[in-house]
C-alpha cells in the first residue's frame, strides 16, 4: 500500500487534491481511498487530506501516520506544524515553492535526502498562469505523478475533467502538463547527477 499525506490551508483545494489522486489511481485500476482529516474547515486554517493506493481493497480507516509521500501545498506550514511527522526515510516530498531549500530552511534535509525524491515546484505560479487563481493543488498532483511514478499524467487529466469542466478544466490540464514536465526534468537531472557522482 502506498500512502500520501497532503498538507495545505483551507481554500487551497487540499481535500480535492486527495480526491482527484484517488480518481486518477482508480483510472489505472488501482484501489484508492481518499479522505480529509475532518474538522471545521476555515479558509487559511491548516488542512490535511490523505490518499491510499493499493492493488487490493483498502479496509484500513486510520489516518496516515507514516506516509510514503508528502505534498506540501503551503510552505508557510513547514515551520508551523510537523508536516514531516512519520515520513518514511527517503519518502517522496513535493513542496509548493518558488524559493530554494536554503530559503525554506530545509538545506539540511535536501543534503541528506535522495534528490530524485525531493522537489520544489512553483505550483501557485503555475496555477495563476494557467487558471488565473492561486490554487496549487492540480499542478502539485501532476508533479506528484512525475515524482513518484504512481499515476500517469493522463490519469491526472482525466481526474481534472471528472472534477471540473470548461475553461477551468482546460487551464488545469495546461497547468498539470507544465508541472509534470518540470518535475520529470528535475527527477531526470538528479538521477543523472547521482549516477555521475
Amino acid at each position, binding site marked *: 500500500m502506498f500512502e500520501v499525506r497532503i498538507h495545505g490551508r483551507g481554500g487551497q483545494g487540499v481535500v480535492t487534491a*486527495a*480526491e482527484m489522486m*484517488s*480518481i486518477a*489511481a*482508480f*483510472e489505472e485500476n488501482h*484501489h*484508492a*481511498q*481518499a*479522505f*480529509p482529516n*475532518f474538522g*471545521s474547515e476555515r479558509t487559511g486554517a491548516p488542512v490535511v487530506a490523505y490518499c491510499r493506493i493499493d492493488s487490493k481493497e*483498502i*479496509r*484500513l*480507516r*486510520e*489516518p496516515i*501516520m507514516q506516509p510514503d509521500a508528502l505534498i506540501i501545498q503551503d510552505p508557510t506550514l513547514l515551520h508551523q506544524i*510537523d508536516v514531516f511527522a512519520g515520513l518514511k526515510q527517503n519518502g517522496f516530498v513535493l513542496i509548493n515553492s518558488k524559493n530554494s531549500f536554503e530559503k525554506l530552511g530545509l538545506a539540511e534535509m535536501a543534503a541528506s535526502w535522495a534528490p530524485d525524491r525531493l522537489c520544489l515546484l512553483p505550483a501557485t505560479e503555475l496555477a495563476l498562469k494557467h487558471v488565473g487563481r492561486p490554487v496549487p493543488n492540480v499542478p502539485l498532483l501532476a508533479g506528484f505523478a512525475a515524482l513518484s511514478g504512481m499515476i500517469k499524467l493522463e490519469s491526472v487529466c482525466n481526474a481534472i475533467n471528472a472534477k471540473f469542466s470548461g475553461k477551468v478544466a482546460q487551464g488545469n490540464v495546461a497547468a498539470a502538463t507544465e508541472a509534470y514536465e518540470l518535475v520529470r526534468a528535475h527527477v531526470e537531472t538528479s538521477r543523472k547527477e547521482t549516477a555521475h557522482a
Partner: protein
Amino acid sequence: MLKQTEGSHAVAEAIALCRPEVICAYPISPQTHIVEGLGEMVKAGELENCEFLNVESEFAAMSVAIGSSAAGARTYTATAAQGLLFMVEAIYNASGLGLPIVMTVANRAIGAPINIWNDHSDSISQRDSGWIQLFAETNQEALDLHIQAFKLAEELSLPVMVCMDGFILTHAYERVDIPTQEQVDAFLPPYEPRQVLDPNDPVSIGAMVGPEAFSEVRYLEHEKQMQALELIPQIAEEFKAGFQRDSGGLVRGYRLEDAETVVVAMGSVLGTIKDTIDEMRDRGVKIGALGVISFRPFPLQAVREALKNTKRVVVLEKTFAVGIGGILATDVRTAMDDKRLINYTVIAGLGGRPITRQSLHDVFDKATRDELPALTFLDLDWNIVNKQLERERATRRSGPTAENILRDVGDHVAQHS
C-alpha cells in the same frame, strides 16, 4: 458500474435508483452532501416524480416524512447527531404508526461538549425507538443497504435507519459499484402500502390507545422486528442473486474458524479491525471478528451461533452508556446468557478519535493474555483526566470541565513541541 466517488454521493445515487417520491431534508454535517446531491438530481430532472422539500428543522423533516409516508409515498430523509435528537418525538411516531420511512444516519457524536466528528451515540440513542438499524461497513455496503432498506421497510411497514460512519464513510472517496436502474427496479417493486390515507377509502391513522390495547400494539412492533430477523437474511440473499455481491444480512464473521478471541464491532472500524486481525493471525494468534450489521433487531441467535466456539469476546464500540459501560456489549452478553465466556468491552473512537491498528494490537494482545480490564477506554489520556479530578478536589469553583481540559491539552502540546 464501477466508480470512484464520495460515500455521500454513492448513497445519493442509490436513493435516486430507489425512486423515492418525497425527500425532506434539513442540512446537518456530516449528512449534508447526501441530500444536497439528491436536491441537485431533483432540480436537474434526473430524479423524476419526486418532491424535494426543504424543511425548517429536523422535527419538521420527520413530521413531513410521516405525512408523506402515510399518504402512500416512498419517503426518504437523512440526519445526524443533534438533528436526530431534535426529531425524536416524531421518530417514535413513525415507528409506532408503522410507516416505512428510510433514513440515513451519518453517525456523529452527541454534545455537549459540541463535537461534529464520528461516533455511534446518535443512532444508538434511538435503539429502543422501534426503528430497524443497519450499520454499513463500507461505502459499497452503505449504498447497498439503502436499496435493501426500502424493501425491508415496505415489506414490514416499519421504518429503517441506515447508519454509516460520518466523515469516515460519508466523506471518503472509494470504489463503489453503482447498480443499474433495471437491477434496482427488478429488486424493489413500487411501494404498496399496508395503510394509506386515501380519500376514496378513508381511514384515520394515529388513534389514541388506552391500557386496553397499548401492550398489544407495542408487542406487534416487537413481533415485526422478530420477523425482520427472518427477512433481513432473505433480502440479503435476494440482493446477492440480483447484484452478485454480499451486502447486509444480520452479522458477518471474519476468520472465525478456530478463533479463541472474537472482536465484535459495527461499522467502518471493522476494516481496521480486520487488518489488525490479519497481522495478529500472521503472528499465530487465533483471533477473528464478528461484524454486527443489524443492531435492531438484535440478532441474538446469529451472534450466539457465531460465538459458540470461542473463549473470549472483545466488544469494541463507538458508544458508551454513561453510568454502566458498553451498549453493544450488553446486547452481546444477552446473546451469550447461557455460556461462560470471558467478556471485555472497549470503548473507542468517541467524538472522532482515530482508532489505530497500533492501539488495537495493544488491547487485543492484552485481551488474549486476559490482562485487559473488563471496561477499557481506548487511548484515554489519564493525565488529563486525573488533572481535572484533582482540580475538582482542590477547588470548589473548579470551572467548566471541557474548557479546563482543552487548556490542559493545549499546555501539554506546547510542552512537547
